[in-house]
């Protein structure tokens, strides 16, 4: 029994150590003064601040960072707004077309982006949105996941609350804004986080729709990093580290919601 506990502990520490090793190697190489040591095992001084300064001074990293933030915060906020409205209505209000809409939302959950990118690109081209922010943002603005998440959560709002508010003469939109939204807050935070993290890592769509460097978000910028400051391994790693920081901060601040988002659908409800 005692031997089992020790064995288990050793295994866990070794396993988690291996899971962290690449992250540690990233920190080491990102802090290196040059490209001579790429093993990523031993710190050779701590030049991370200088490396970041070089990237922000000479490269386009600030532009990519700004574009990613606009993209993620913008579409995240819109997704939260529209999914909150639709998810609440689909859970709590009866209106014509509700079932059709629900089928449409569920159906899209199964579709792969590889099928949709071609026609969506043609639509965006038709709208004249190639190489624009709206072209990058609008097609990925609302997710079936978001509508579904909010709907499942909104099913738990007690009917009596809404009935009481109606009896007091509150209008439907007021009930939504004043009663439903506050109750849905945990689901909406989860949705924003999941949306932000997904969009932060979205390479395929910006790659297709944005050819101008001025518009590139971080993943596309990283993919073209060689042509930036002259390809150096340690500066590429520093750029990767900078890319990883905002999701990390959000995850630390909103850990509970992150786990809730990951496990949504996986646990018994």
């Amino acid at each position, binding site marked *: 029994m005692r031997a089992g506990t020790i064995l288990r502990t050793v295994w866990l520490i070794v396993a*988690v150590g291996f899971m962290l090793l690449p*992250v540690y190697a990233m920190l080491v190489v990102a802090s290196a003064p040059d490209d001579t040591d790429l093993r990523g095992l031993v710190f050779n001084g701590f030049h991370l601040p200088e490396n970041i300064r070089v990237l922000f001074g000479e490269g386009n990293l600030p532009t990519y960072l700004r574009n990613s933030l606009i993209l993620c915060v913008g579409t995240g906020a819109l997704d939260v707004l529209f999914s909150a409205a639709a998810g609440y209505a689909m859970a709590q209000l009866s209106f*014509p077309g509700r079932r059709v809409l629900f089928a449409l939302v569920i159906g899209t959950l199964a579709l792969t982006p590889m099928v949709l990118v071609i026609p969506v690109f043609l639509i965006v081209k038709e709208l004249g949105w190639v190489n624009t922010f709206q072209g990058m943002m609008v097609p990925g603005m609302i997710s079936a996941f978001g509508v579904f998440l909010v709907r499942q959560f909104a099913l738990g709002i007690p009917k009596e609350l809404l009935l009481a508010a109606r009896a007091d003469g509150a209008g*439907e939109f007021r009930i*939504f804004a004043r009663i439903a939204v506050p109750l849905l807050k945990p689901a909406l935070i989860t949705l924003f986080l999941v949306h932000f993290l997904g969009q932060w890592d979205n390479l395929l769509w910006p790659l297709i729709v944005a050819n101008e460097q001025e518009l590139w978000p971080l993943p596309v910028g990283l993919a073209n990093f060689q042509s930036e400051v002259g390809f150096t391994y340690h500066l590429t790693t520093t750029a990767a580290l900078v890319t990883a920081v905002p999701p990390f901060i959000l995850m630390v601040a909103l850990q509970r919601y992150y786990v809730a988002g990951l496990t949504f659908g996986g646990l018994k409800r």
Partner: protein
Amino acid sequence: MSVLGRVRARPQATAGVLGRGRARPEATAGVALTLPVAVFFVVFWLVPFLAAIYLSFTDYEMAGTPNWIGLANYERMFADPGFLNSAWITVVYTVCTVVPTIVLALLVAVPLSRPGRLNRGLRALVMIPAVMPLAATSMVWVIIYSDRGLANTLLGLVGIDPQSWLTSSDLAIWALVVMVVWKSMGLFVIILTAGLQALPGEVYEAAAIDGSGAVTTFTRPTLPLLRRTLLFVLVISVAGSMQAFVPAFLLTGGGPADATQVLPYYIWANAFPYEHMGYAAAMGMVLLAAMVIVSALQFGFLKGGDE
């Protein structure tokens, strides 16, 4: 007439009338609140989906107009070595990422889900790789796989010669697989740990009283109870692997010699750089069909055990 009919149909006439009086603003609000989402899904999901089906039966090449060519794209696919190669690589890539990821994640999650201060700390650390963006992860692994990188350094410790991971057509696909297993493992450890922690504690007490060892406790109460979470992890990891584009794009560019040209990469390359949009749409349809069939099989397989 219809109002009368409705009132008569309901025993509590007043409630019915009141209900109808309320139903109107409720319906208006329902439509108004869902309208943006409905329009969005029609324009950016339903119409494109139908358009993709149509395009898959045409020779559309971006310039010019689409001409209907029937099943020609689908026939072409099965004589196209590029497609057959990509399909095979996708199968290998999916199986070899999904199975080790889930097995390893379970081996970590089961002991990690136990209470204790050390475990709580380790659970927090596991989130770090899970939250790393895939684009950043890929750039880091380019360094790890470089000639003087971490992978060759670790091999050197056990006396194996350095390898050119990303430029050898034998090794490149395995280099991608190892990175993806690492990347998804963190995510799945978190999901499985949450699933394990949600299991009722009495089950384990009963197993302990029965004197079950670690292995029997795992195979008897734990594994069946965890079926739902496992199914979820399996479905999302298979779907994720079948659609994976980023690792091949960032680490190897589909090369060397098409050795890592997974199907999503081949579809993208045909559609955008080469503008064979009709053909690419047809391949997208085949990928979608494969994904639907595989998910249905997984649900059938894991649900079947319930009876």
